[in-house]
């Protein structure tokens, strides 16, 4: 069943178009992450789903009902904010139960819900504290509790972890995943952190300039990016893009004359794409470049090593390939000679091709 559907949604702030004809669907129980750089419109989209922003065009459906003109409180949603947004003058208990009191829930039902949620989130010992007396992680837990207690159809998270320090962020990330696994409620989650998106989402929608670039599973997003933006946005370091030409089923890198990388095994999106000659990018992730040949699909190239960055469990090496730079990721146990031409192998099963003009995947 489709829990949330967004149809042809557009939104302007004055003359700036923030969202352009957004279409999205999310099945019940799924975890959708809206991922994109700041200013891409992801938070606006979330606010629109919550009913906190008006719609200029299009519609939002929750459980197949058009909620475009329904008040936030009546949409069966709950939201967790970046700044936690706990009411400073109220203690934890009052914070969690404020919404239930507004909807005139009977007292014993409120108590019951409070108990359930506070034990679940392990905040039952903090009930009489004010938000200012809580640590960042505790505040976040209370904010989640305030959302849980409403038993919503959809949870909305607006960058809930970005105010936490690195260690706590990883912990809370795991906790959110656990909560979702247990409750199986539909979630829409906004973040600019790709690790968060990858680890939490069952689906990721990558946004840029108010347009959804790709909405897919984390695996497809990583391995089969729809366009150059996605290829460049996901991965650290991002996918290498090597410029060249597509001629007779081969990739010929710019600046070389006799190198032909065969592309006959590449799975083209549209078989027509494989016919014409054109300028393209060959995309390859840094971890799909190897020093040793272990597989017959590996293609040998020769590139000069220029720089090595040691980062503990691995090292990132910058290579010069016909005056184009690309990065390779290797185990840090490997000794790599600097300023030498090295034999490298790229895994042809892992490449992506992009049209240079349209910037779309071929």
């Amino acid at each position: 069943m489709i829990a949330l559907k967004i149809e042809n949604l557009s939104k302007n702030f004055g003359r700036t178009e923030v969202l352009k004809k957004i279409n999205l669907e999310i099945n019940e129980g799924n975890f959708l992450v809206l991922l994109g750089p700041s200013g891409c419109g992801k938070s606006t989209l979330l606010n629109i789903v919550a009913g906190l922003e008006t719609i200029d065009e299009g519609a939002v459906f929750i459980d197949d009902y058009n909620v475009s003109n329904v008040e936030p409180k009546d949409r069966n949603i709950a939201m967790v904010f970046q700044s936690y947004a706990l009411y400073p003058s109220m203690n934890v208990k009052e914070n969690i139960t404020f919404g239930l009191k507004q909807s005139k829930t009977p007292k014993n039902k409120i108590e019951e819900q409070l108990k359930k949620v506070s034990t679940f989130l392990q905040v039952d010992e903090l009930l009489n504290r004010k938000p200012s007396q809580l640590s960042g992680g505790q505040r976040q837990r209370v904010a989640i509790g305030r959302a849980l207690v409403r038993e919503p159809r959809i949870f909305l998270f607006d960058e809930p972890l970005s105010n936490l320090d690195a260690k706590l962020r990883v912990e809370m990330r795991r906790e959110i995943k656990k909560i979702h696994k247990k409750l199986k409620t539909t979630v829409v989650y906004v973040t600019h952190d790709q690790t968060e998106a990858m680890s939490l989402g069952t689906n990721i929608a990558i946004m840029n300039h108010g347009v959804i670039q790709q909405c897919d599973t984390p695996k497809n997003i990583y391995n089969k990016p729809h366009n150059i933006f996605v290829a460049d946005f996901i991965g650290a370091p991002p996918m290498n893009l090597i410029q060249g030409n597509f001629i007779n089923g081969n990739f010929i890198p710019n600046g070389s004359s006799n190198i032909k990388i065969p592309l006959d095994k590449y799975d083209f999106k549209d078989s027509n794409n494989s016919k014409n000659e054109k300028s393209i990018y060959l995309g390859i992730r840094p971890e799909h470049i190897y020093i040793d040949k272990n597989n017959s699909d590996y293609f040998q190239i020769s590139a000069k090593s220029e720089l090595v960055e040691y980062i503990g469990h691995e090292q990132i090496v910058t290579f010069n390939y016909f005056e184009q730079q690309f990065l390779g990721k290797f185990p840090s146990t490997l000794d790599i000679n600097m300023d030498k031409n090295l034999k490298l192998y790229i895994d042809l099963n892992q490449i992506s091709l992009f049209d240079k003009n349209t910037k779309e995947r071929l």
Partner: protein
Amino acid sequence: MSANTTIASYKQLEGRSKITNLLLRWFLYFILILFASYFIFPLYVMLVTAFKTMPEIRQGNLLTLPNQLNFESWIVAWGGRGYGAGDTYLRPYFWNSIKMVVPAVFFSTFIGAMTGYVLTKWRFKGDRWVFLFLLFGCFIPYQAILLPMARTLAVLGISNSILGLVVVHSVYGIPFTTLFFRNYYVSIPDELIKAARIDGAGFFKIFFKILLPISAPIIVVTVIWQFTQIWNDFLFGATFSFGKAAPIQVALNNMVLSSTSVKEYNVDMASAIIAGVPTLIVYVLAGKYFIKGLTSGAVKG
């Protein structure tokens, strides 16, 4: 330079800067004490004069302490001498001022809080212009609104009454109170309001349950500011009220200027101090919050 010579020069410089610092510090204290006494001096003269008898004032110089604490002038300033006509004293006018200042401070603060709330948390098209025009209100001199205000009060039928003064001071105060509250609320995250809306709270509920309970610092600032302004105001009081409806500052003026006989400096001084004490009390009681409110942003995190 070798390491040894550098260390020697460090020592030399260290010694020199110690002496300079000490001299500067003493100079600083000297200046501070000078300015402090400059400000304290008038208050001192007022206090000692208020406790002196008239003959003592005539012969002695301004700075000497009174021979004995003489409360006569305070009693006269507050309650008069007890004979009929022409006896002006502060008591009734003091209560006039209280009756004026309490509702006027209340209304202007409340309206300012509401306006600040709307201008920051319920933004609407053109709200910046509304705020800008409200700001103009802060720069309009008292004199400019005397005539139109007099006319308005006449139309409303409340000229020469305490109610009239309450209205004038409330209206005149709104730009300032709005400015205070707007600047305070602008630093409170909008997410707080969003969360409350999702929780089902409406316009007034959010204001009274969420925002007002965390507004104490700015309420204190506004109350002190408005109280001082309204209590100390002379021009509006003198223009829009006379006789029995006058506030204390007007009465003080009448007392000091209309004495037909000899000038009683001790009574004048006592009256002036009585007229100034309420603002002083407000400062002392709320001063701690005043500084906090002026400097603090909103709730963090």
